[in-house]
């Protein structure tokens, strides 16, 4: 199924490689296939419509990379936009300064709440926390038994006064119990339909009674178009802080994830992807985006294209570095690369384990600054770009006038250039751990 789609796309534009800038026709043709792919992935119809419109805007006029067809270039943009949409800075649990931190799990019947509670408890326990499970599902036969059994397996206390107690009371007393026996309270609730007034009221009452720091909606990854209905209703009635996506070890494309994120604006915090209690982790937007798009082989093609471009340029750059020949022309080239790839911080956030480079994580590429730098370099002559040492007082003035900047700006740029050269020399001599920044040898 997925192969057929990518084939169709590749066939459609077989002979138009590296074709200048994306035109409206290029984009329309590709978006038809992408709309299909997203619908087949169970992304909500309306969310697909909005998303496609948004991407069309973004894609118009973008330059097509060498070795990619226009259609593939569009897919690249779509993948980036999907990843950006699914990602969020806010993907962690909120912990309270005053224990216990309270987590309320809610969702439709069968979504995987009880199992998710146990998995979250195990996850937090591994992290040095002391979670307590609270059995507030008094309706589902043996739900309390289930949570108790799981609690025993994970090795955490379970507060379970039984099915004859009001869930609101269980929640409140459970939090007290958690205060005395741990530092995180995880409340399991009964599965409920978002259109069941009585049960939604009950959930709202639990919420106002215990004031959770985290209200998580548990969503089954195989949910179809209806995902937004439930999510939106839960958000309106009890508010939500985040989503837990379950059963990701199946082969559902998981479009519900995108729908819920788009419609509620809440981040997906956790992904449950297996039947073992360990199969629980924070959510990875990049992986989810490519799974939803389902164009695995096109995306690896794009990756290869990017890699080869980078590899080619990186090789050239490396050679120049060794000869200490890094010039302003090269600098310009690097700026272009960075801008094309999107925000530096968003790329870095996708790299697994970037230890000790926290400063880099916060680098924001300011477009206006880049514009000014570009302008200054354009105002230089070819000789000046190749040999910046030539740039004396009168040349600085000319460059400043030509680029609409000041001599101080030019001085600053020259200073940055010298610092950059020093840093690059360090990279090439292996003095720091090579980090594969776009276009730079590592």
């Amino acid at each position: 199924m997925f192969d057929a789609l990518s084939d169709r796309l590749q066939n459609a534009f077989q002979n138009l490689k590296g074709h200048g800038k994306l035109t409206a026709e290029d984009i329309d043709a590709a978006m038809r296939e992408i709309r299909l792919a997203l619908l087949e992935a169970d992304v909500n119809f309306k969310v697909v419509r909005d998303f496609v419109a948004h991407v069309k805007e973004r894609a118009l006029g973008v330059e097509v990379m060498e070795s990619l067809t226009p259609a593939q270039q569009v897919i690249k943009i779509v993948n980036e936009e999907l990843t950006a949409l699914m990602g969020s800075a806010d993907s962690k649990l909120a912990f309270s300064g005053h224990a216990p931190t309270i987590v309320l799990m809610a969702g439709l019947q069968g979504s995987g709440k009880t199992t998710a509670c146990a998995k979250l408890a195990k996850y937090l326990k591994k992290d040095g926390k002391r979670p307590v499970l609270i059995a507030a599902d008094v309706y589902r036969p043996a739900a309390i038994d289930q949570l108790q059994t799981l609690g025993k397996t994970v090795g955490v206390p379970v507060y379970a006064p039984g099915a004859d107690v009001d869930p609101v009371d269980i929640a409140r007393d459970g939090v007290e119990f958690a205060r005395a026996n741990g530092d995180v309270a995880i409340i399991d609730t009964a599965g409920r339909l978002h259109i069941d007034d009585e049960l939604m009221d009950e959930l709202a009452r639990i919420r106002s009674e215990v004031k959770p720091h985290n209200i998580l909606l548990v969503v089954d990854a195989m949910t179809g178009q209806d995902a937004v209905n439930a999510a939106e209703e839960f958000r309106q009635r009890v508010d939500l802080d985040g989503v837990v996506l379950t059963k990701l070890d199946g082969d559902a494309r998981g479009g519900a994830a995108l729908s819920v994120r788009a419609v509620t604006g809440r981040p997906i915090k956790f992904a449950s992807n297996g039947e073992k209690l360990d199969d629980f982790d924070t959510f990875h937007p990049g992986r989810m985006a490519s799974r939803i798009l389902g164009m695995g082989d096109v995306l690896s093609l794009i990756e290869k294209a990017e890699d080869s471009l980078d590899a080619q340029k990186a090789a050239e750059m490396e050679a120049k570095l060794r000869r200490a020949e890094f010039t302003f022309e090269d600098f310009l080239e690097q700026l272009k690369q960075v801008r094309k790839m999107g925000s530096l911080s968003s790329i870095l956030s996708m790299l697994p384990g970037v230890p000790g480079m926290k400063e880099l994580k916060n680098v924001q590429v300011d477009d206006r600054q880049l514009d000014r730098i570009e302008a200054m370099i354009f105002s230089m002559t070819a000789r000046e770009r190749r040999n910046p040492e030539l740039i004396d007082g009168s040349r600085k003035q000319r460059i400043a006038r030509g680029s609409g900047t000041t001599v101080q700006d030019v001085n600053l740029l020259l200073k940055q250039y010298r610092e950059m050269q020093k840093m690059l020399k360090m990279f090439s001599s292996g003095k720091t751990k090579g980090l594969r920044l776009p276009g730079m040898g590592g």
Partner: protein
Amino acid sequence: MEWHEVFKGVAEADVPKEVIAEEERERAGLFRRLRKNLGKARHAVRDQLKSALYVGVDRRLYEKVEETLIFADVGVDGTVKIVEELERRCTAKKIEAREPFLEELADVVAGTLRPDDPERQRIDVSADPTVILVVGVNGTGKTTTIGKIAYRLHQLGKTPLMVAADTFRAAAVEQLSEWADRAGCEIVKQDAGSDPAAVVYDGVAAAQSRGADVVIVDTAGRLHTQVNLMRELEKVRRVIEKQLPGAPHETLLVLDATTGQNGLRQAQEFKQAVDVTGVVLTKLDGTAKGGIVVAIHETLGIPIKLVGVGEQLEDLRPFEPDAFARAIFGGDEDGD
């Protein structure tokens, strides 16, 4: 369709009059409840369609129909096929007005769900004992459905026996035991962690010694992508086959109505592993329409036999293609 019609092997004469009367009362009560819950959701679509129809049958109307079908999880292919058929019929019959158009639409959709042979929609419990194997992915409502089926059969004069072959899920046996209590029937179970095939073997053997005439086997929820678990299920089926020729007589795939296109994959894989003979579509009391069953029936030929509409014992109905089709567009069984 009434229960004694759905189940083949239940003589109408055997069904107590009180049960038939109760069935009627239940239907009425059920619709009142459903109508209350679905109030908002139900009217929205029909109003949209009605107002779209005000200018006759045009492109905008067809787009609205497509949108509704996609929202119902019918899927892109299914939607295209239905709309093409609808256009064909409307052209041929020169349909240009609201009511006939909606009638035709409902009929096209219902047509995708009606087996050619109406017998295929029935559940055959005439064998003594009959074995019903219940399968599906996690969280679809298998255990609850078994409770409901056992209850119905008991009402119709049968003696069901439940088999707790989900030996994996925490407290699964306790859960099914609770349902056995509620449905008023017996249950065969072993310790958690036992071999499901062993429990099933015991269960089928027990049926004969305990005089049970329908054996309903609960299995653990499993994703069809888990190869070893699918193999385990195949083994369970083989054990049943070997023990009792002709068994299992019915293999029901329980499918959650909120499931999207992955439902078709599920049906494919389970069919390949254990030859599914029917689908139970659950949680239809929510806002999801379960349209993926259209693809399941059209592509795989698996009939939809039952629908679940709540968490209580009585919340099980025979599947009715016309009612289902109307529900997608916001109608209910009264053709409102």
